[in-house]
């Protein structure tokens, strides 16, 4: 039984258990923030509120950059396998 357990690469599984959720949540949060930011910025612009519109646009922009960075990193992982 112990020999069987020794075969399992526990260190890789351990890393995967935090790295995969972190990557997935980054994808989910950043893309959701893009949607929320653009939607709210649009609403604020229509209401004539320039400052909130600018702030929400900034949120969407930063989230967009973070999302693109995650995607580029994903492609790099695929290419450098």
């Amino acid at each position: 039984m112990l020999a069987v357990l020794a075969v399992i690469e526990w260190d890789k599984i351990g890393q995967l258990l935090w790295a995969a959720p972190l990557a997935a949540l980054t994808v989910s949060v950043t893309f959701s923030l893009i949607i929320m930011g653009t939607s709210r910025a649009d609403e604020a612009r229509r209401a004539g509120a320039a400052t909130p519109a600018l702030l929400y646009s900034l949120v969407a922009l930063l989230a967009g950059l973070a999302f693109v960075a995650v995607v580029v990193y994903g492609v790099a992982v695929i290419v450098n396998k």
Partner: protein
Amino acid sequence: MGSDIVLYIVVATALAFDFTNGFHDTANAIATSISTRAMSPRAAVLMSAVLNFVGAFVSLAVAATVAKGIVSADAITPTIVFGGLIGAIAWNLLTWWFGLPSSSSHALIGGIVGSAFVAEGPGAILGDGILEKVVIPGLLAPTLAFAVAGLSILIAYRVVGRQKPGVVTRGYRLGQLVTGSLFSLAHGTNDAQKTMGIITLALVAHGDLSGDFHVPTWVVVSSATAIALGTYFGGWRIIRTMGSRIIKMDPAQGFSAQGAGAAVVLSASHLGFPLSTTHVISGGIMGAGAAKRLSAVRWGVAGNIVIAWVLTLPCSAVIGGAAYGLSSLFGNDALGVVIVLLMVIGLIAAAFGSRVRRGPAITAAAEA
């Protein structure tokens, strides 16, 4: 002369496996995109086929690891590889027929294990490798994807909860174009290379290549083409199961399942711990549904899928072993391999002929 014929048949069978691998796994990358109407079915399969083709050229690292650590390297012969491929193709076709997503990699491993077992006995099978490459990833992949996709969708709903539904729907549909593309590219880099590895192994065993592992260009091009064609044909039965029979998903759930799935697959790949894309995306879809409401998941369908996963290794092993056993009845020459090949082609033709006589099969047009 006889060994040349066996080699040609192994190469053709490997490309046929690659084709079934493509159409069996099309659903992994695009089922959620089609289900949420992020893409039309034809556009989705075209995009996935192109990216699978491109992905096959990106890296050849995986090609060198096929069957490594699963069966004793000294035991591998072209006839054992042939038996293994028959086992994998048969299981892929059977699960496709019932619309059940299952791992083509595990089917290939199972087929080769069964074939090697019949040829060389239990001593040729490396149990540790099966535990490490099949059992542990098979347990970890769907569980992790289930949890991560569940968490992702809860966060997504929290962030966009008060926005207009139209904006949210359009946004997540757009996001699915990106996550679906990533999935397709990752699939091409992993799965086309299994076939390249198999063909290269057969060429080395036949004496056409030296021992150092170098994949010839014609092998890369033909494997990339076979998986891309298979993807373009689309395994519509499995696409329907994944896209609409496990859960009825909205675009946010589709994005979360796909995004979480891509993150899990690529994180695992980065750590040198490859997981089945089929297991990951299936777990992700179930997680995205269950997080919204447990009863949103059709657990009967999910249960059937899990049963198919459990049966993949033993069933493909039995078929692979039977294919090897039958071909070896006719001696070590090419005759046995030719007879088994003709029998398999006959069985497939009979099954498809019967399906065609019963009316039109499920197609992209029918799904749209």
